[in-house]
């Protein structure tokens, strides 16, 4: 029998969704030693896209190899006694400032729990109150280490995340951003985006109250709120609010999306800049949906669709005819 085990079949198996018949099929397939290599290759890929957590690799490597980072050079002491006292005073002042800065920085680390995703990585976390946060790539979410769900339900966001908030009688859930924008909720599902100069909120279920600058505003399900720096904020109704958080499953959705908009998505998700050799290229539009875990997967499909070429050099994607 022709044995066709592909990546999809194995991914389903890793996620515990294989029928006994499939398992037998995989077992037969694994009898070929070459396929065992393949198995681990795909296991590695699956693990990278479904990571449970990200350990501190650099520190562990240092501990293992015993090569501590060299500490900064000590300030050379001056031999001239006249300036010594002054020097000591300055040194003491610098040390005090450094200490205060360190305490201030550590205070945040101590008081807040912070989660970040790298470029190309999406992850879901469950907050202590049971609310679910799906983080898109290159996103940081911070919340109180102590008292979250008790004294407050305040979350600080930079990047893009999707929230499914649990209902909790009196305790409002608030998402704070650095764009003068706050979202206050009582149990609902919505997405907040805040990168560069743009901030958006899309509501899928329930009710939220926005506070943008001084103004407060209520959103209805399906509403998309957009605020650009230097432009008036506006709210419009969208037909399929789900589409706007499709990135949760590494799914990219395009609806008459221009290549320049795509460039923004690539920057947000993979940290790559985009350059168009011919400016006309940036106006071409694409529609459709596709699944891509890496920048190259996405770029390959785009290049095929538009029949164009791309190269990646030093963190920049170059598109050409």
């Amino acid at each position, binding site marked *: 029998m022709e044995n*066709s*085990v*592909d*990546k*999809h079949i194995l991914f389903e*198996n*890793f*996620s*515990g969704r294989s029928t006994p018949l499939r*398992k037998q099929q*995989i*077992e*037969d397939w*694994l*009898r*070929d030693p*070459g*396929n*065992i*290599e*393949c*198995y*681990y*290759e795909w*296991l*590695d890929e699956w*693990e*990278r896209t*479904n*990571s*449970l*957590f*990200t*350990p501190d*690799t*650099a520190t*562990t*490597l240092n501990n*293992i*190899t015993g090569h501590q980072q060299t500490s900064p050079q000590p300030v050379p002491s001056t031999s001239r006694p006249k300036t010594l006292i002054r020097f000591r005073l300055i040194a003491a002042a610098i040390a005090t400032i450094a200490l205060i800065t360190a305490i201030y920085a550590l205070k945040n680390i101590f008081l807040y729990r912070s989660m970040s995703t790298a470029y190309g990585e999406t992850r879901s976390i469950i907050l*202590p109150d*049971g609310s679910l946060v799906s983080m898109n790539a290159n996103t940081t979410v911070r919340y109180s280490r*102590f008292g979250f*769900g*008790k004294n407050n339900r305040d979350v600080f966001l930079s990047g893009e995340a999707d929230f499914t908030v649990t209902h909790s009688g009196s305790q409002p859930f608030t998402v704070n951003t650095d764009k003068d924008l706050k979202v206050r909720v009582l149990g609902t599902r919505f997405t907040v985006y805040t990168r560069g100069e743009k901030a958006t909120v899309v509501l899928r279920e329930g009710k939220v109250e926005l506070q943008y600058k001084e103004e407060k505003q209520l959103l209805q399900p399906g509403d998309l709120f957009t605020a650009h720096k230097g432009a008036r904020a506006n709210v419009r109704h969208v037909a399929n609010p789900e589409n706007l958080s499709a990135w949760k499953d590494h799914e990219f959705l395009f609806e008459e999306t221009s290549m320049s908009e795509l460039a923004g998505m690539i920057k947000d998700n993979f940290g790559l800049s985009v350059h168009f050799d011919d400016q006309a290229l940036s106006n071409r539009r694409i529609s*459709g*949906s*596709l*699944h891509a875990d890496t920048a190259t*997967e996405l770029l*390959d*499909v785009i290049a*095929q669709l538009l029949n164009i070429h791309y190269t990646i050099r030093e963190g920049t994607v170059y598109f050409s005819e």
Partner: protein
Amino acid sequence: MKEPKQSSGNNPLRIAVDKDADEQALLMDNETFIRVILKDDPEKGFAVLFKKYYGPLCSHATRFVYSKEIAQDIVSEVFLNFWNKQLYLSVTSTFRAYLYTAVRNNAYNHLKQEFGEKLATTTEPVEDLDPQSILLLGELMTKIERTIETFPPQCQKVFLLSRFEGRKNREIADELQIRPKTVEAHMMKALSILKKTLSEYLK
């Protein structure tokens, strides 16, 4: 030699004509690349290998032991062993296959020691596993996840905070506004359910 892979064609917009072959070439290059550095400058090669695989391996080990701390210990130990015994000179499979096999074995042995009926024998040298064992390990991983999903909500929360995050009972009690004794009771319950369901896998 490797069989050519089947390209996955379930997503209409996913273009997979030559892509798999390219990806394969790239990955093989990575392996060869690391092998070359390991030969020239072992310390540097080790660092490259470590940086590439430490993260995903820790995540993988966590699926078995459900503790970030234990998982990191297991993976570090595998890397140390790899380094101390200069296994990079003798491993015949790809390093990736070796590392995953070793981490899975050690995680499994850890579970045996913690939840098994009798003490596991000392960690045996890593052998290549037969197809059935490879699949069984995958199944065990799913089984553990499913079991934890069946815990009552509060018990699950306590278990994840204590075991997965490694938080202190006192902290958990404060955070969830329950008594430390209740935290202990939840943990006892969780671990006994886990032990029961794991017993058939840990013989």
